[in-house]
């Protein structure tokens, strides 16, 4: 081998080695970038899914709260209507009592007798507003006769006007004041509100929303 050939071989091998090193580096660089791209894609996919889950949970909660608030509003509207019914009923009952018609006088008698029937004893005081006391006094004999039949004994009933204003109706107490039965129209309206509320809702809303 001549000196020229030797020099050429050295140069060639060096070039070959340098090319191999650079080629390997390029392959390694491409692999790193490719892996980074794949990792970024995978991370993005993973994070996107997590974010979508998070946002959907948030969205569902927000909508549930909005729906709940609206349902509350709906209930308030219903309640307001029911309140209006009872307010109007109170006014009408007051007007009926104010007129003092035969039907109302009959009702007063029944309210007294209901009170007497509900509590024990045979001596009672019936309290009412002064207008109703007058009406009751006119029917007192009949009331006492009917009360005696209910109690199976002689019944004594006295009347007394109470100071406080009242729509009408009566409070029946035993003579010793140990028992009483509030049968004023206000008390009856209050009981009606508790007992008839459900039916009032049905009438008002006909089982709809």
């Amino acid at each position, binding site marked *: 081998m001549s000196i020229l050939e030797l*020099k050429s071989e*050295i*140069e060639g091998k*060096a070039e070959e080695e*340098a*090319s191999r*090193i*650079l080629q390997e*580096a*390029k392959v*390694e*660089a*491409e692999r*790193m*970038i490719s*892996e*980074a791209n794949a*990792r*970024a894609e995978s*991370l*993005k996919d993973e994070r996107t899914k997590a*974010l979508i889950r998070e*946002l*959907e949970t*948030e*969205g569902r909660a*927000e909508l549930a709260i*909005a729906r709940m608030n*609206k*349902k509350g*509003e*709906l209930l308030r*509207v*219903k309640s307001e*209507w029911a309140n209006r*019914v009872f307010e*109007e*009923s109170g006014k*009408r*009952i007051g007007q*009926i009592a104010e007129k003092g018609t035969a039907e109302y006088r009959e*009702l007063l008698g*029944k*309210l007294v*007798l*209901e009170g007497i029937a509900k509590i024990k004893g045979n001596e009672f005081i019936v309290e009412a507003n002064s207008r109703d006391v007058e009406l009751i006094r006119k029917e007192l004999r009949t009331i006492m006769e009917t009360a005696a039949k209910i109690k199976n004994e002689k019944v004594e009933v006295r009347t007394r006007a109470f100071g406080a204003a009242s729509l009408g109706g009566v409070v029946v107490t035993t003579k010793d004041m140990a028992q009483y039965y509030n*049968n004023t*129209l206000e008390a*009856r*309206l209050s009981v*009606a509100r508790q007992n*008839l509320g459900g*039916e*009032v809702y049905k*009438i*008002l*809303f*006909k089982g*709809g*929303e």
Partner: protein
Amino acid sequence: MIRILSIEIRELQEVIEQEKAAEERVRRAKEEAQEIVKRAREKAESIVQALESDPYKEKLRQAKREETARKKAEIEEEFKRKIQILDKTAEESFEKAVEYVVKGTLSAET
């Protein structure tokens, strides 16, 4: 004889020089290779880091906000209709309900 030896030494020196140049060539190639790998590593890091500043998250949030707002508006409309129907039904039945309460309140047991 001296001349022949002199020629051989010169040639040997040339080979050594060639050898040194070859080593230098390989050393530069290694340096260049290291630089290529370093740049690739930096680029790979920047690809992953770019995710953090990618606006896709904000776009998703915005899309979801808009969807939720649209659904809330639908709920608003749905209940507005329901309340209108409720008011109408209650208004029509109001008188009947009042009569029922008045009758119920004024009906004594005896």
